[in-house]
């Protein structure tokens, strides 16, 4: 199905199932331990051996020699594959780091061997017996030191945010110089780790030249192509299966060392191999959100109209890596005739920087929305009002291009009302509650909506059960449920008459989970397949297709009504289709919007920041399942609190690695950090997005949250921290005199 004109009325608009807060259909399996994650799939293939991955102990240089004698004779060892056994392997899609093969070490904890043994403990113990001789080389590990020489580089995040090396509209320098009110500030955001609960894990089995990977991966079709490329085998010879994923946040968009080394280990061992990356390996072996150094300049007239805006960002990465696209949202969020955006990329020898939830947008919005708060203060304007004043309904770089639907103003107004923003004293440092300094902050949330083709197959059987198959993934988001809701709505059956099967590369290729594009595109693909299945049903039953109504397990036309199941009495009816898109995303800017409101308390003595209240108001088209959408947003808000207050991979700038590479050292919020969270979705549809009229929410939810926290900290303390996260050491010297 080609979607190239705005959606009109269709069966989804009935909203009998879609749009209703619905429990996850896979929830029962998850809570009862019967949803098996990659490492737990003991039954998919017999005789599984265990693999353990050894990481490099240097950040840059060469492996000169590896001494395996002791490891080979250790108890239980079946096979050892080292990086010196083969030339450097190809890279998969969208990855900068080479995962295995050859002596060259690009970054700390790069995989250099896999040990396969009868038990996990034996594999691990043997891996520690491998002695490695290195020839280390000096590397570049300090972004601040390299930034001055970083060239302008444009690129996209692979998840929708992008920018050329430099964008100029009007005359930024002239307008900024002439502006009466100006802001020129610099900010930094740290390297961050996805820190998802389930580590990267894979079971690999070869059957002749046919490889099956039971793995944990967000993007099955990419994964299939990538593993084939890395191993140099035809893609048709590979099957990936990933029905349950314990979080990804972008870490599992790609094929990484777990899959490659499980496959190589299984080949060498001549039996299936199961392995997971050990937690202390993940921060340095895999990808992370790269640190940024950003500068923002804003000029405005005294009425608060922005006349000039510039956002520049520098990040680092391995050679062939991308810049963090932190300026992308500033291109679109606020009006202003004179504009400058620029991205610079410094070569670094730290592990690979790549997509993490809202890549580019999250650190970019963190900084932009603090700068906007600072500017509002300079102008003596309420920060909500200042944002409303500079709202735009057109793409500021391209005035002919309108937003398909944009209600940021609605989010801000409703949020302000619900949060009690009018109670906020415009002066910082005025509110105290016992030993807490209390402040409120606001920020806009803004993330684009991506359209990407997505296919599905649907089957009706004689019991009236509708089975959906697509390689779409559910990374904890609720894909199973919204897909079931879509099929139920389209075929006029109850939810319990729908079976959803996901994550298998033998199913039609979907949009996958990334860039908050999963929900809208994957359900639109299911919609397309269901349209075809409806046609097949109608034909089978001899109905006139135009007026057939699918409802309550029946198909009705005129005064004739037949059981839907009857259409399959002579055999299953199967239909397959995909949604693909025309030009609507080019002619119109599709985005999602939010207003984030946060109240914090800052301990007057210690500077500890604790969030007291949070509210997000989101405008993201039709909300397919308000229950799972809310979960997405509160999860993202929590992650935003982490970014604002604690998450930071600490770089050892001499040795070139992230030091706090486990979950004791890399702190993310715990339950005690997160207070009551409210989420409100504006009741809206976007007919330009797809027949579902829906957009994504999962990354919208994190964009801007951190800035709202930072703005609240400023409001509480009068201290503007511009290097994130805001830990107490950055406040302590500037807090009011101790009591």
């Amino acid at each position: 199905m080609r979607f190239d004109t705005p959606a009109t009325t269709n069966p989804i608009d009935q909203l009998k199932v879609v749009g209703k807060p619905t429990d996850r259909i896979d929830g029962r399996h998850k809570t009862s331990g019967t949803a098996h994650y990659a490492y737990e799939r003991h039954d998919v293939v017999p005789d599984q051996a265990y693999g353990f991955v050894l990481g490099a102990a240097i950040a840059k240089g060469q492996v000169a020699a590896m001494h395996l004698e002791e490891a080979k004779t250790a108890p239980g060892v079946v096979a050892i594959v080292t990086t010196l056994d083969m030339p450097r392997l190809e890279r998969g899609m969208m990855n900068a780091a080479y995962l295995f093969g050859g002596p060259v070490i690009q970054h700390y904890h790069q995989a250099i061997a896999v040990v396969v043994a009868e038990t996990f403990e034996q594999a691990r113990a043997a891996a520690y017996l491998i002695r490695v001789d290195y020839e280390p080389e000096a590397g570049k590990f300090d972004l601040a030191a390299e930034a001055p020489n970083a060239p302008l580089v444009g690129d996209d995040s692979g998840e929708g945010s992008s920018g050329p090396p430099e964008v100029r509209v009007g005359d930024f320098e002239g307008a900024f110089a002439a502006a009466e009110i100006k802001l020129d500030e610099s900010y930094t955001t740290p390297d961050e780790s996805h820190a998802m609960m389930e580590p990267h894990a894979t079971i690999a089995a070869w059957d002749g030249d046919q490889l099956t990977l039971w793995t944990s991966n967000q993007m099955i079709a990419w994964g299939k192509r990538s593993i084939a490329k890395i191993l140099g085998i035809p893609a048709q010879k590979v099957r990936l299966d990933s029905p349950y994923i314990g979080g990804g946040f972008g870490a599992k968009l790609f094929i990484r060392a777990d899959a490659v080394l499980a496959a190589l280990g299984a080949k060498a061992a001549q039996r299936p191999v199961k392995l997971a990356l050990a937690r202390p390996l993940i921060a340095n072996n895999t990808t992370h959100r790269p640190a940024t150094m950003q500068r923002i300049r804003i000029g405005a007239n005294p009425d608060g109209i922005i006349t000039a805006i510039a956002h520049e960002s520098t990040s680092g990465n391995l050679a062939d890596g991308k810049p963090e696209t932190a300026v992308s949202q500033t291109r679109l969020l606020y009006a202003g005739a004179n504009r400058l955006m620029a991205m610079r990329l410094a070569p670094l020898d730290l592990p690979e920087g790549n997509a993490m939830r809202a890549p580019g947008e999250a650190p970019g919005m963190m900084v932009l929305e603090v700068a906007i708060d600072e500017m509002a203060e300079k102008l003596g304007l309420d920060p909500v009002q200042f944002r409303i004043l500079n709202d735009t309904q057109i793409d500021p770089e391209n005035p002919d291009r309108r937003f398909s639907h944009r209600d940021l103003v609605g989010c801000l107004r409703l949020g302000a009302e619900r949060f009690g923003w009018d109670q906020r004293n415009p002066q910082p440092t005025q509110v105290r509650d016992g030993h807490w300094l209390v402040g409120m902050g606001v920020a806009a949330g803004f993330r684009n909506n991506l359209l990407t083709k997505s296919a599905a197959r649907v089957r009706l059987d004689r019991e009236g059960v509708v089975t959906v198959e697509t390689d779409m993934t559910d990374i904890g988001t609720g894909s199973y449920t919204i897909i079931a809701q879509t099929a139920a709505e389209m075929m006029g059956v109850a939810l319990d008459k729908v079976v959803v099967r996901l994550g298998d590369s033998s199913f039609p290729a979907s949009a996958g989970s990334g860039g908050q594009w999963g929900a809208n595109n994957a359900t639109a693909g299911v919609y397309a397949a269901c349209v075809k299945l409806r046609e097949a049903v109608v034909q089978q039953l001899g109905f006139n297709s135009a007026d057939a109504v699918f409802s309550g397990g029946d198909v009705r036309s005129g005064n004739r009504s037949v059981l839907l199941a009857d259409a399959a009495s002579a055999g299953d009816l199967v239909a397959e289709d995909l949604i693909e898109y025309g030009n609507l995303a080019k002619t119109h800017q599709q985005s999602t919007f939010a207003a984030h409101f946060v109240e914090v308390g800052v301990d007057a003595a210690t500077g500890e920041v604790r969030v007291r209240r949070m509210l997000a108001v989101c405008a993201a088209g039709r909300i397919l399942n308000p229950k799972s959408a809310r979960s997405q947003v509160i999860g993202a808000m929590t992650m935003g609190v982490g970014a604002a207050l604690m998450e930071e991979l600490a770089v050892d700038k001499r040795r070139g690695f992230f030091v706090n590479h486990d979950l004791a050292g890399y702190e993310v919020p715990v339950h005690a950090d997160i207070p009551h969270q409210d989420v409100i979705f504006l009741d809206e549809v976007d007919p330009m997005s797809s027949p579902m009229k829906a957009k994504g929410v999962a990354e919208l939810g994190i964009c801007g949250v951190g800035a709202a926290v930072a703005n609240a900290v400023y409001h509480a303390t009068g201290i503007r921290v511009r290097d994130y996260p805001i830990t107490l050491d950055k406040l302590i010297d500037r807090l009011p005199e101790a009591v």
Partner: protein
Amino acid sequence: MRSFTYERANTPGEAAAAVARTPGARFIAGGTNLLDLMKLQIETPTHLVDVNGLKLDTIEPAPEGGLRIGALVRNTDLAADERVRRDYAVLSRALLAGASGQLRNRATTAGNLLQRTRCPYFYDTAQPCNKRQPGSGCSALDGVSRQLGIVGVSDACIATNPSDMAVAMRVLDATVETVKPGGVSRTIPIAEFHRLPGDTPHVETALEAGELIIAVTLPPPLGGRQIYRKVRDRASYAFALVSVAAVIHQDGTGRVALGGVAHKPWRIEAAEADLPRGPKVVTEQLLADAKPTHDNAFKRPLVERTLGAVISQARN
């Protein structure tokens, strides 16, 4: 993890003898620290002597009027004990500020006293660390050291002792009761139990090889307001950046010990006379010899401010 042999001991003397007998042997109690370190091969015992069956899991009144806490009493049980909550609230609060409910259910009194540092380089066997591998150097000195010590540090090591419980025991002046492999028992004042790093940061306590902790004794109740204030980056489940254990009386006199700043719970009795004069003078004495790094210099003002908050809380 290296392979090891395992046995269960039935009496303290037997346990101590078993460890003394086998080179590389260690006691194991709750295992919440030792097993983690074994998985990473930071600790590689050849033999484990399980002390969980020694029946050292009761809290009894001590003859001098205090409480005698068996070495195997779980952190959860100790924190919940009515006598501890009433008379030694600082200890109960310190315990509850540590780890998580699950870990406290398992962690023992002796194991908690002996838990090892959380210096990130200590945890990465690819990095030099004098504590893990004597003579290899200290990666933290000019590395990432935000969590690490500022006082009592040496050129060989700037690690901190991460225990919350031990800070409270130090302010209460507990004593540690042990039995040596030969069957001889002794008591070690908590002040002398943990050592400063000096040139031998791998030697962390006064215990001799095979010496088994059998109890920790608290002196008779001290009264006063008892406060444990743990400062950290998130609200729970994190080690202290700085912590303050305090016993403060109506007249403003009292005692104070610090966590998160040194290789041992940090207390200087002489400084306590100045408690009524407020946090500044006391902190000046407590941290007189401080040698913070660039990363952890904030701990000095943090100590002073936290102590100030504790004193004012105690007097309100």
